[in-house]
């Protein structure tokens, strides 16, 4: 397996807290064949880490378009084609998982760093605040709070687990 990218979300959060005007570059990656739709790494990360994975998820119930679904791991998946950006889910979610900026109407792949290519990966790393994004060979290590988001991306954050 080639190199992965490691995003240190905890560090990023502290940096962002110091400088709220900071603009972060966005990147995306198509993780698995059954997960289509243009979603940023952040959205994926948020669903994986921040979301409380509510038992009787209010967001799913609230969605007027049936766009939200739980996958086998209990992670929320938002189907971009169905979502009408009404933001009901944002309102309903008791934990602030859903963020308004997920729902920008129109996204264009060309406007993101596409982590498919190593070159772009490096560019992305360079564009991020120093130290927050690194390119490593390392693997998932829950001890260090490093989890694999998908086969290209590792995220360092506290994982919320239901059980």
């Amino acid at each position: 397996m080639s190199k992965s990218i490691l995003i240190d979300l905890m560090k990023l959060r502290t940096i962002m807290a110091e400088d709220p005007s900071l603009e972060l570059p966005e990147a995306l990656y198509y993780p698995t064949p059954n997960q289509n739709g243009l979603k940023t790494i952040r959205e994926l990360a948020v669903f994986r880490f921040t979301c409380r994975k509510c038992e009787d998820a209010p967001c799913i119930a609230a969605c007027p378009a049936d766009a939200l679904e739980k996958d086998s791991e209990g992670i929320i998946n938002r189907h971009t084609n169905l979502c009408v950006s009404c933001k009901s889910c944002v309102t309903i979610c008791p934990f602030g998982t859903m963020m308004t900026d997920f729902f920008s109407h129109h996204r264009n792949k060309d406007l993101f760093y596409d982590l498919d290519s190593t070159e772009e990966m490096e560019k992305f790393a360079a564009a991020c605040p120093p130290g927050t994004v690194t390119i490593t060979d390392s693997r998932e290590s829950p001890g260090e709070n490093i989890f694999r988001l998908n086969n290209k991306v590792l995220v360092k954050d506290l994982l919320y687990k239901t059980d």
Partner: protein
Amino acid sequence: MSKKFLIPIGPYHPLQEEPELFKLYCDGEIVRDIKWETGYNHRGIEKLSESKTYDQVFFLVERICGICSTSHPFAFANAVEEIAAVEITDRTKYIRSIIGELERIHSHLLWVGLAGHFLGYNTVFMWAWKYREPILDLFEMITGNRNSYAMFKVGGVRRDIENRMIEPVTKILDDFKKKNDLLTGAVMDDPVIHARTKGVGVLSRQDIIDYAAVGPTARASGVAIDVRRDDPYAAYPLVNWKVITAEEGDVFAKAEVRLLEMYESISIIEQCLQGLRKEKEGDIQVKVNEIPEGIGTGRAEAPRGEVFHCVFSDGSNSPLRHKIRAPSYSNIATFKKSCIGQTISDATISLAAVDPCYCCTERLAAVYDSGSGRKLYNARELIGLSADRTSELRNKNDLK
């Protein structure tokens, strides 16, 4: 020795409802050259489409043109469903085809009427448009609107044609058939119409191939292409019908093809209605979650010919690039062949023969009086008028 002089047709000319400028370079009354100036109707739909979600794009493409306001969603749905690789339900297929064919009827009638109008034969205009009204009523009954029906979505249709509607629809169609016989007779047997349209605006087979013209324009010149048969979609493979062609390539042939096509359409609708009875009510959607990255090409046979949509998806919720080719785009270019060497009068009917069309969803509040700014009619009242009428129609036909 004689110079050529320019007669402008358009841009805001009663010949066309839409703005378009044709410059006829004339020598006396003879047209020697023709030039177009377009862009009056350019709305940047392809660009707009890139900023809308797939669901919204349906409303947008519906408003490419109000006359074939189903063909574009039809082709777009075909394209997107191709990318998403979904197979729609049979009921959906039937419903889609019914809407498509009803539209063909209304569009052809509209054309016959307008052609009459261009020829100064206002009686034909009035008659054709009168007979078109029941078809619009059908639309209103089924979809709630006379045009721009908002029926399509990815993976299905938005509204069902409930089985209780089948009866009244058939009744109206039967009625219509009789009137259509009358109209067809009036047009096809009128010697003066013959004199005005036969041998006028002739397009040869080769011209059609060269300009890649489509639809009735091509079929009237003996080029039997029809996407419904060639690249079947929706319910067309499930029903029996035939492609109408003519050989002459003149205006009359085009009229003939259109008039006869209406009968085919009626028969398709009847078969589809039969088909509907067999299907389960309400089974009109397949859920499509994501549109993957890829290219989708969709076609549909609009009243004027093949509509082609090519959708490039990058996996997001809106197209990356959306290329639309309306039939008129190919057909209008043939004017260069059909008009040159004819008189101005012939040129105008030749223009019309192709049924050119160059071509809208927020609702605003009120009718204002500019002087006082007083509101005269508010949106609710106006829409209410429309709604009343819709329910009146439904009541009349014992629906609800």
